C-alpha cells in the first residue's frame, strides 16, 4: 500500500540504490522498499535448473491428478499457459473439451482403420503394418515419414507445436511420441532446448533475461504496467510485463510504439526491406520468403504483421491501421506534408533528449567503473576503508538510476496529450533534469565536494524522481492498490 502521495525518502543503508547499480540479492521481504520506491516489484532471478524444477512440479502435479503421461501434461499445460489448477477444474467438468482444446484429441476423429492400411500417404511406400504409427487422431503414417517430419520441424525451431501430417488435422505430437521417432542425439537435444524455451515463454510468471547470452530467468507474479526486474547475471533492467528495457514512467504499449518509431525513422528503408526479422513473441529469427505481410512464426505460431510487427488479429479488417502504411509518403498530400514536417520536428525534439540521456547513461557507467578503481586505490593507500567511501559509490549509482528514469520520461511526454497534466509532467521532468545535472556535476567532483552537500543533492534528486514516478506511473495513478505486495 505504498502509492500514497507523500513519500519519505529514507536515507537508510543505501541498499536501495542497488536496483540501478550492481549486485542485489533480490530479497523479497523488504517492505520498506516498497514505501521508498514507487517502482518496487517483487521478483526472483532463477537459474535454468531452478526453472526446470518449477516446471516439473506443475507437470507432475497435473500428470498425477489427471493420470496422464508427463508428455501429455506438457501439451496441456502449454495450451493453458501453465495454469494447472484451472486445467484440473476444467478437466473434472469436461475432460474431452480440455483434451480437444489442447489439441491432444481431434475434434473430428479419423475414419481410417489401422488394419486396412496399405500405403503411407506421404511417401507412397508400403512398409509392414507394424511400421506405422499415429497420434490420438488415428492418422497413420509410416515411421520413417514421422521421423523426417519431426526432423524438419525441429530444424525449423518448432517443438511444442508440431502438428499431425494429415490435412486439416491440428493434433499436436507430444514429447514421448516425437522422441520415439527421432534418434539423432543433436536433434533430440535441440528439441528439448526449444521445448524449454517455449515453456518459459508461454509461462506468464517467467521471462528470460533479454541480455545477450544471459541464462537467467525472472520469476514473478505478472501484473499490469511497467514492472522493473534486474538481472543477477548481467545487471540489465527489464520490464517484466513486456520484456522491453525497463521503461517507467512510460507504459508498455507506449514504449513499444516509441522504440518501433525510433528504429523505423532511423533506417526506414532498411527496416522494411530487410528479409529477416525476429518474431515479436518468441524472438526467433524468421525469414520472409514470400511477399506476404501476414506472417506466422513457425516456432510459436504467433500471427503477426511483417510491416509493424503488431498482432495480426488486431489488423484484420483494420489493416489500414498499420502505422507504417498510413505514413506512406506517396499517399500524403501537400497539407499533410506540412503536418508531417511539424510532426517530425516534435519527434526530433523528444528523440534528441532521449538519445542524449542514453549517451550520458553510458558515460556514467564508465564513471562508475573509474570510481571503483579510485576508491580501491584510496583504501589500499590507507585513506579510510570502503565503508568511508561508500557514499561516493552510492552517489554515482543513484545518479545512474535517476538518469535512467529521466531518459524514459521522454517517450512518455512525446505521446502525452497537450493539457494541464502534460504541463505538470514537463514541469516535474524539468526539475528532475536540473537536479540530475547538479548531482552529476557534484559526483564528478565528489572528492572535493563536501560529503554533506553531496548527500543533500542525492536526496533532492531521488525525491524528484520518486515524486514523478508516484504521480505518473500508471499503476500508481490508476490503481493505487496494485502496488500492494
Amino acid at each position, binding site marked *: 500500500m505504498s502509492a500514497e502521495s507523500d513519500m519519505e525518502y529514507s536515507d537508510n543503508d543505501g541498499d536501495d540504490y542497488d536496483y540501478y547499480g550492481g549486485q542485489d540479492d533480490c530479497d523479497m521481504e523488504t517492505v520498506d522498499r516498497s514505501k521508498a520506491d514507487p517502482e518496487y516489484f517483487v521478483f526472483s532471478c532463477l537459474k535454468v535448473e531452478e526453472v526446470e524444477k518449477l516446471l516439473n512440479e506443475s507437470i507432475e502435479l497435473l500428470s498425477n491428478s489427471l493420470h496422464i503421461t508427463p508428455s501429455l501434461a506438457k501439451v496441456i499445460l502449454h495450451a493453458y499457459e501453465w495454469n494447472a489448477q484451472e486445467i484440473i477444474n476444467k478437466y473434472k467438468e469436461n475432460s474431452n473439451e480440455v483434451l480437444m482444446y489442447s489439441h491432444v484429441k481431434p475434434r473430428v476423429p479419423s475414419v481410417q482403420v489401422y488394419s486396412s492400411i496399405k500405403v503411407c500417404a*506421404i*511417401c507412397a511406400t508400403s512398409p509392414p503394418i507394424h511400421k506405422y504409427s499415429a497420434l490420438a487422431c488415428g492418422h497413420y503414417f509410416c515411421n520413417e515419414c514421422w521421423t523426417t517430419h519431426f526432423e*524438419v520441424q525441429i530444424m525449423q525451431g518448432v517443438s511444442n507445436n508440431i502438428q499431425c*501430417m494429415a490435412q486439416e488435422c491440428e493434433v499436436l505430437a507430444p514429447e514421448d511420441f516425437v522422441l520415439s521417432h527421432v534418434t539423432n542425439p543433436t536433434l533430440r537435444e535441440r528439441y528439448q532446448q526449444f521445448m524449454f524455451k517455449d515453456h518459459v515463454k508461454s509461462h506468464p510468471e517467467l521471462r528470460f533475461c533479454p541480455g545477450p547470452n544471459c541464462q537467467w530467468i525472472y520469476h514473478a507474479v505478472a501484473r499490469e504496467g511497467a514492472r522493473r526486474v534486474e538481472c543477477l547475471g548481467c545487471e540489465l533492467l527489464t520490464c517484466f510485463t513486456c520484456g522491453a528495457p525497463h521503461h517507467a514512467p512510460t507504459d508498455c504499449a507506449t514504449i513499444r510504439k516509441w522504440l518501433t518509431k525510433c528504429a523505423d525513422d532511423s533506417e526506414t528503408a532498411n527496416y522494411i526491406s530487410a528479409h529477416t526479422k525476429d518474431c515479436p513473441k518468441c524472438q526467433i529469427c524468421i525469414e520472409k520468403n*514470400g511477399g*506476404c*505481410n501476414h506472417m506466422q512464426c513457425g516456432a510459436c*505460431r504467433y500471427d503477426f504483421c511483417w510491416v509493424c510487427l503488431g498482432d495480426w488479429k488486431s489488423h484484420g*479488417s483494420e489493416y489500414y491501421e498499420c502505422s507504417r*502504411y498510413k505514413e506512406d509518403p506517396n499517399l500524403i498530400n501537400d497539407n499533410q506534408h506540412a503536418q508531417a514536417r511539424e510532426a517530425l520536428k516534435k519527434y526530433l525534439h523528444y528523440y534528441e533528449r532521449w538519445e542524449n540521456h542514453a549517451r550520458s547513461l553510458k558515460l556514467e557507467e564508465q564513471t562508475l567503473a573509474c570510481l571503483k578503481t579510485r576508491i580501491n586505490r584510496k583504501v589500499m593507500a590507507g585513506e579510510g576503508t570502503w565503508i568511508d567511501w561508500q557514499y561516493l559509490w552510492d552517489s554515482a549509482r543513484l545518479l545512474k538510476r535517476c538518469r535512467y528514469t529521466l531518459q524514459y520520461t521522454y517517450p512518455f511526454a512525446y505521446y502525452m496529450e497537450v493539457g494541464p497534466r502534460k504541463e505538470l509532467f514537463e514541469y516535474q521532468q524539468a526539475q528532475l533534469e536540473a537536479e540530475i545535472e547538479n548531482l552529476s556535476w557534484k559526483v564528478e567532483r565528489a572528492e572535493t565536494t563536501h560529503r554533506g552537500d553531496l548527500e543533500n543533492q542525492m536526496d533532492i534528486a531521488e525525491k524528484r524522481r520518486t515524486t514523478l514516478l508516484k504521480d505518473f506511473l500508471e499503476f500508481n495513478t490508476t490503481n493505487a492498490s496494485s502496488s500492494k505486495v
Partner: protein
Amino acid sequence: MANIAAKRIKREFKEVMKSEEVADGTLKLELVNNSWTELKGQIAGPSETPYEGGKFILEIKVPETYPFNPPKIRFLTRIWHPNVSSVTGAICLDILKDQWAAALTLRTVLLSIQALLSAAEPNDPQDAVVAKQYRENIELFHLTAQHWTNVYAGGPNVILDFVQKVQMLTDMGVDENQARVALSTFDWELERATEQLFS
C-alpha cells in the same frame, strides 16, 4: 533432391496429368527442369469472376524437404486480387504457410489457388491496396481485375476507358506497367495517378 521429394512430385505430377481438370483445360502443369525441383502451373480463371477467360501461370518451386515443407508458389502472370501481390505475385494462402500438411498434394494446392480466385479473403490481404479497393469499391475492383486479366492473362473483356487512360500515361513516357499500377491504385483517377508518378 531428396528421395521422397522427387518420388512424391513425380506421383503428384501424374495425378494432375490424369485429372479431369487437365482434361477439361482448367489446369495445366509442366516441368521446368529434369530434376523435378521446379514446375510451371497454369490455372484458368473461374467462370463468373473477373478472371474468367484468363490463363494464369504459376511458378512452383519444390523444396528439398518436400512434402514436409510446402512448395513455394507465386503468380508469374500479373493479377489484381486482394490475396496476391500485384507487384511480386506472392500468394497469401494458409495451406501454403502454417496450414500446410505433408498429406496435401499439388492438385489440391492448385485447386485451392483457383478457389481463391473465386472467393477472395479481403481480411487476410496480401496486397493492401487491392484489398482496400475490394472493400470500398467492389465494382471498380471488378473492372480493374477484368482489365488486368485482359492485358496480362488474355481475358476477353476490354475496358476501353482504362486502356485509354493507360495510353495517355504511356504517351507521356511512363512505363506501361507502372502506369497501370498507379491508375489501379488511385481508382483510375488520372490526376492522382499522374501526381504520384511524377512526384
